[in-house]
């Protein structure tokens, strides 16, 4: 059966929608903020976008393999609370580095926790990670009951003001992420991700280690969430035990508009990263256009619905026409 050209294109290039939205968002942003392409603005924007980009990369891997992780935001919160209380504003850079390492371990342990329940106890990913999101969120509030504390400014400034070759760290981190992904995709493990997400039963019958693959995706997601948490405290300098709360929905939205199917087995992380940047730009637009911030949630919701509905709407139109 023939496919309409849009369906064909979006199947071959799953991140097409993200690209279109990205370009539209940039044009609209440019209208409100003519300085958008000046180096200062770009670096400033990317500095703000990077935490979500890291979070999205991990979430995309989970969704690609057919799961979902809605505890990522809470892991960000734990990391933020942990660093703010253990390192402190007057801590030394060495201490900060040590606790960054511990924070990554915490992310991995949280991911193992999710992965164990989903892969080995066969619990529903959405229920499991919803439950653990309260667990992790509660721990964050236990460690740091209200916003406060932080990391030394000298450390935060490395993230905020140091620009190798005039570009912010994000311009180095993102290509490395994409490159690592492109390489992973060409390994057996990469193929396993697609196979498990596409049809787990078939993968199992082909002797793919399905449980281990599912487990690994949650560990990756936990690790990336911890990285995002480190990144966000570098950005803000202070701790906030609820900072990650709204990042979960943003991460999932980014993945969806980035063309990684919620059903699994299709997509990658390049599209979702573009989706994350697009969401950041939309946030900018809303603040520049002097619109109430609650519109931002509204716009996110509209985008996610549109992205999910697009293929269905197109085939509906096609059917009515004939």
């Amino acid at each position, binding site marked *: *059966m*023939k496919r309409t050209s849009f369906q064909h294109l979006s199947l071959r290039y799953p991140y097409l929608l993200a690209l279109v939205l990205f370009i539209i968002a940039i044009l609209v942003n440019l209208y409100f903020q003519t300085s958008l392409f000046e180096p200062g603005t770009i670096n400033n924007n990317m500095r703000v976008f990077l935490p979500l980009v890291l979070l999205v990369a991990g979430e995309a891997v989970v969704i690609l393999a057919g799961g979902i992780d809605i505890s990522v935001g809470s892991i960000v919160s734990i990391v933020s609370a942990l660093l703010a209380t253990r390192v402190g504003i007057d801590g030394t850079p060495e201490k900060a580095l040590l606790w960054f390492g511990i924070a990554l371990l915490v992310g991995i342990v949280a991911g193992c926790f999710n992965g164990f329940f989903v892969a080995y106890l066969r619990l529903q990913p959405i229920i499991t990670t919803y439950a653990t999101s309260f667990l992790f969120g509660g721990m964050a509030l236990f460690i740091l009951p209200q916003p406060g504390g932080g990391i030394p400014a000298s450390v935060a400034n490395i993230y905020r003001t140091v620009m190798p070759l005039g570009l912010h760290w994000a311009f180095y981190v993102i290509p490395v992420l994409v490159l690592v992904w492109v*390489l992973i995709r*060409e*390994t*057996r493990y*990469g*193929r*396993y991700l*697609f*196979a498990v*997400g*596409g*049809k787990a*039963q*078939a*993968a*199992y*019958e*082909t*002797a*793919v*280690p399905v449980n281990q693959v599912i487990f690994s995706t949650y560990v990756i997601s936990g690790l990336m969430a911890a990285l995002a948490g480190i990144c966000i405290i570098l950005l803000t300098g202070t701790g906030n035990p609820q900072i990650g709360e709204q990042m979960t929905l943003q991460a999932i939205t980014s993945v969806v508009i980035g063309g990684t199917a919620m059903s699994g*087995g*299709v997509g990658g992380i390049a599209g979702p990263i573009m989706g994350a940047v697009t969401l950041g730009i939309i946030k900018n637009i809303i603040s520049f256009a002097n619109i109430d911030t609650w519109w931002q949630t509204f716009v996110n919701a509209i985008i996610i619905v549109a992205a999910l509905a697009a293929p269905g709407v197109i085939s509906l139109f096609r*059917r009515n026409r*004939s």
Partner: protein
Amino acid sequence: MTLSLSAQNIVKRYGGVLALSDGNLDIHPGEVVALIGANGSGKSTLSKVINGVVVFDGGQLLLDGKPVTFPSPQSARNLGISTVFQELSLVPQMTVAENIWLTREPLKPYGLVDKKEIKVRTKELIALFEGCYKLPINPDYPVGSLPPDEMQLIEILKAISFNPRVLILDEATASLDSRQVQRLFELVSKWKKDGKAIVFVSHRMEEIFQIADRYSVLRNGVTVGAGMMNEITEHGLVNLMVGKDSVFSYAAKERQSEIAEKPARLVVENLQTTVLKGIDMTVREGELLGIGGLKGHGQRDLLLSIFGDIPHSGKFLFEGKQINYSHPRHAIKNGIALVPGDRSREGLLPIRSILENLMLPSWASYGFPLKMRKANLDGEAISNSLNLKMSGLDAQVNSLSGGNAQKVIIGKWLLKKPRLLLLDDPTKGVDVGTKAEFYKLLRQICENGTSIIFYSSDDEELIGLCDRILVMYEGQIRRELVAPNLTKANLVAASMGASDGSMK
């Protein structure tokens, strides 16, 4: 002769259900053994025990005389046991090449997949079925974009790419057309000579007699007979399978002349879709019209167009009135019913009760709140007339065997008293015992005045059952077969596009 693999007294329970209570199978190198049994007799379970997909609860597996256990498919595969799964073990979103080599990708240094090597080796494998594809297959096509028969071929190629010692073919021929089956059998004979042991699970008697050396028959989870193929008749095998002397005999009734007098129920003129290239045909009242031909030559499109399920152009006259349905709802309302080809996906709500499945199209006539007593009575009546073997109307449809599940689909439409019934390969994967009942049922339905358009991939049943057969080839009707031309030779010739006989 060394015994390469032997399953002895295998027991397997799924929850409280005993799927196998005494399964036995000996597999020798260089031999094809047919594993035969009615649906639900435990064939698939036994083959899944042998390939490690399920872990058995009792009995033992002997490999060259030594007991082994397979805790995972991986361990069975390491010993060279490979399977063509009935439900296919392919990931639709991945390409042909990725699917075939999944878990065994040739690697370059640093663990990267060697795409070039994969492509070359995939092409070599694809060439094994040269001439059996509708279009040349590119290793980079997503498997999900291929028609079902070609997916099945890819599944076979995947299994053989292991170069296995034991190859299990679980209903591998069910969705293949006769040309593809012949090619497969040529390959099986070759593999046999190479010393591979082959387990052939099938419902098609003709194929079993053509390819198998030995047989092993399962009935209700127990191996009831095994021996050499040349020492048993088709009749004998059927008796072993059903356990009683009920032979499947469906004498075709010579009623064509009688039917030709009847008024036309449906006239199709110049029907076109992306696949169909101008179909003209007539179905008469009470006629059982067969649609034959190789898989994928537009039979499914024909049925779906009449049912209003796919975009099409052309003219339909239903009982003299011009119709053109753009939605199956319209067709159903006017007394047309479709029994789809993929019963678990398109025909049934697997986890709902038999009653709910039967009543699904008819609930509207049971008022509000639903008159459950009446529904139960009607459900009871129809399941009795269908001779449905079930534990009760409130049992899940899942619990029925393939043939009985198919009866539920027919039953749900019979409750609506359709005047035209469209059947898309309804006996695929149905055992012989149930098939015979099914044929009787179809004849009965026709005698009550309902017209049936019956597509089947099984040439035997078309010949045995239908009043008239239209053979499709490349989206057109190649030939119309009526008695006395209603023979298998004519059907096969027309399916292959042979240009003899009455061309349209």
